[in-house]
C-alpha cells in the first residue's frame, strides 16, 4: 500500500507542482492583486503599492468603458451562442441522416475551421469583410443589397465578429452533437412515427430530449469560450469602432498591459470569472431542474 502511495505521489507530483505554482498560486495572487492599486508607479517601486480593499471593484462599477465591455461581451454571447449551437445542431442533423461514405468527408470539411489558427483566419476575414474589396460585400451587392462597412460601422462590427466566431467553431459542437444524435435509439423515432408525429414533432419530442445532456455540455462550453472573446477584436478591430468591440478580456488586456494598472485589471479578470461561474451554475441548475443533468 505504501509503495503505491509513494509511487502515486511521485507520478502525480510533477504535474501538481506545475499546476500549483503556475496556475493556482497566480489565481490566488490575482485576487490579492485586485485588492491593491498596483500600477506603473508600483512596478517601478514596490513602496508605491497601496492596499485599497474593494476600491478597484468600486471604481470598475463606475467606469463606463467597463460596462460597455460587459455589454459588448454579453451581446456577443447572447447572440453568438444560440446561433453557433443552432448551426452546429443543423449540421449534425444533416450529417446524421447522410450516407455513411459522405459523412467522413463532410465532417472533416465542416470541422476544418476549428483547428485553424485564430489570428491567421482573423486576418483572412478582415479582408473578406473589407468594404470595397471584400467578398462578403461583393456577394451582397450581387444580391442587390448595399455594401456594409462591416468593421468600420459601430452597429455592424460586433455582428461581423459574431459571424466570424460562429464560422470558426460551429464544427466543434457539431461533432459532439453528432455523437449525441447517434446514441438516440432508432426505435424511439419509430415509435413516434407510428404515433403520427411529423418530422418537427419528432425533433421536439425525441431528438431534443435525447440530446439533453449534450446540449447542456455544448452550451456551457460555448458560453465559457465566448465570454473569453479577445483575439478577434485584437486582430480585426482593436476594440473599435468607437469601442463597440471592446470585450471584457480586451479591456483587461488594455488596462493590464497597455496602462499597467495590474490591480485594476485583476479585478476585471475576477469579475469575469465570477460571472462565468455564476452563469455556468445557473445553466447547470436549470438543466437539473429539467431532469437533464
Amino acid at each position, binding site marked *: 500500500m505504501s509503495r503505491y502511495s509513494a509511487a502515486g505521489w511521485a507520478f502525480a507530483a510533477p504535474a501538481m507542482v506545475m499546476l500549483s505554482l503556475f496556475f493556482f498560486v497566480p489565481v490566488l495572487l490575482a485576487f490579492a492583486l485586485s485588492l491593491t492599486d498596483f*500600477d*506603473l*508607479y508600483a*512596478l517601478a*517601486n514596490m513602496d508605491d503599492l497601496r492596499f485599497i480593499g474593494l476600491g478597484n471593484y468600486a471604481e470598475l462599477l463606475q467606469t463606463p468603458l467597463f460596462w460597455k465591455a460587459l455589454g459588448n461581451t454579453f451581446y456577443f454571447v447572447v447572440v453568438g451562442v444560440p446561433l453557433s449551437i443552432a448551426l452546429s445542431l443543423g449540421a449534425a442533423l444533416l450529417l446524421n441522416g447522410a450516407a455513411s461514405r459522405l459523412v467522413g468527408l463532410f465532417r472533416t470539411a465542416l470541422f476544418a475551421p476549428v483547428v485553424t489558427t485564430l489570428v491567421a483566419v482573423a486576418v483572412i476575414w478582415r479582408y473578406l469583410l473589407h468594404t470595397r474589396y471584400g467578398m462578403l460585400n461583393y456577394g451582397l451587392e450581387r444580391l442587390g443589397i448595399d455594401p456594409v462597412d462591416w468593421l468600420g460601422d459601430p452597429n455592424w462590427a460586433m455582428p461581423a465578429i459574431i459571424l466570424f466566431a460562429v464560422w470558426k467553431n460551429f464544427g466543434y459542437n457539431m461533432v459532439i452533437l453528432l455523437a449525441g444524435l447517434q446514441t438516440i435509439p432508432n426505435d424511439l423515432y419509430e415509435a413516434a412515427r407510428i404515433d403520427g408525429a411529423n418530422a418537427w414533432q419528432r425533433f421536439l419530442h425525441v431528438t431534443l430530449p435525447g440530446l439533453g445532456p449534450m446540449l447542456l455540455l455544448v452550451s456551457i462550453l460555448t458560453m465559457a469560450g465566448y465570454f473569453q472573446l479577445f483575439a478577434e477584436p485584437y486582430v480585426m478591430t*482593436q476594440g473599435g469602432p*468607437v469601442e463597440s468591440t471592446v470585450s471584457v478580456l480586451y479591456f483587461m488586456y488594455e488596462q493590464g*498591459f*497597455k496602462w499597467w494598472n495590474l490591480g485594476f485589471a485583476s479585478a476585471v479578470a475576477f469579475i469575469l470569472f465570477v460571472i462565468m461561474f455564476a452563469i455556468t451554475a445557473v445553466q447547470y441548475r436549470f438543466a437539473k431542474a429539467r431532469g437533464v443533468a
Partner: protein
Amino acid sequence: MRLFFLVFLLLFGCTGRDDGREVVKFWAMGREGEVVAELIPEFERLHPGIRVELQQIPWSAAHEKLLTAYAGQVTPDIAQLGSSWVPELVALGALEPIDKIAAGSQTVRAEDYFTGIWGGNVINGRTWGVPWYADTRILFYRSDLLRQAGFAQVPDNWAGWLQAMRAIKQRGAARDYAIFLPINEYEPLLAFALQQPEPLLRGGGRYGNFTSPGFTRASEFYFDMFRQGLAPRATNTQISNIHDEFAKGHFAFIITGPWNIGEFKRRMPAERQDDWMTAPLPGPTGPGASIAGGSSLGVFARSKRKASAWKLIEYLSQPKVQLRFFELTGDLPPRRSAWNAPLLADDRYATAFRDQLERTRAPPAVPEWERIGQQIRIVSERAVAGQISPAQFRATLNADTDAMLEKRRWKLAREASQ
C-alpha cells in the same frame, strides 16, 4: 543527455552570435524603423567595434512593448521614444539622464535644437532624451479657395481665420465645409489649448486645469467651428480618404503633420498640385503655438552599453544624417542647422513648419498624460456630438483628470514628507 542540454538552452533563450563587437540593441518604430536600417551600415563602418541590432516594432504595439520590456527587465540599450512616452519612462526610472554626456558632446548641442522640441525632453531639470525628429501640427489649406474667398493668405489670428472660413463656407456648396477636424483626434484641440497662457494641469501636475479661462477659450473656439457648420461631425475613419476630399474642395483646411507634405504631393491630382499650401497655426491674437511632438532617442538606465548607444545617438544627430533621414522619411530635423540646407530651406511647404517649430509647447510632462489625452478625445467627441454641453465637458474633464492624478498626488505628498 545532449538532447536535454539542447532543450535547456532552447528553453531559456540562449542564443549567441559572438564576433567580438559590442552589440547595441536599438528599437525603432514604423517607417523610421525601416529607414534607419539603411543608415546603420554607415555607422558601423565608422565604428568598427559596434554592431547595431535593430528591432522594428509597429507603432500600435510599441508603447506596450516598451513597458512590458521594462517590467520584464529586458529593455534594449536605446530606443526611439514617442514624445509622450518620455515622462512615463522617466517616472519609472527606466531612462538614463544625458545632461553630462551631452554637455561634453560636439555633435549634440542643445542650443541648435528648437527650444520647444528640446524642452519636451527636460523633466525636473534634467534631460532624458535627444530629439530625433520633430513633429508639430500646422494648417494645410486650399490656397485657391482661400483666394477666391478674398484672402491672400491665412490670417494669423483666430478672429481673422474664422472670418476666412466663414467666407469659404458661404461660397462653397451646401455639403462642403471649411475645415476638417476629425472628432476622434484631439490634437487640434490640444494645439489651441497650448496656445493659451494657462497650463493644462495645475499644482505641479497634480490637478486638471480645464476650467481655466484659457482652456475655456480654446474649447469654445473649437466647438464653435462645429456649431457654425464650418466643420463636419465626422471621424477620420468616416472620412478616410482626406486627400480625395481635400482635392474635391469638401473642406479647405486641415490641421495635420509633416508626413502629409509627401502624401499630398503623391496623392493630390496633378491639376490641384498648385492649389494647396501650408501655414502656421493662427493664435488667439497673433501667430500661435503648436504641439511639440516627434520622437526622441533615449538610453535605458539598465543598459550595459551606454557609451556605444550614445555614439549611435551622436551619429543620428549629425545634421547631414538628419537631412538624409528627412529625405527618406519626410520627418523634420529637430535642429536649426539642418534646416539651412537647400533641401529644406527651398521647400516651400516646409517653410511653414520651420516657422511653427520656433513656437511649440509640449504637453504636461506627467506619466498620466497619455491617458489624459485619450480622455480629452473621448469626452470631446461627446461634446461635439451634442451629448454634453461645453461646460459639462470641461467639468467632466477636470473630474476625470483629477481621478487619474490621484496616485501622483499621493506619491508626491509622500515624497515631500520624507
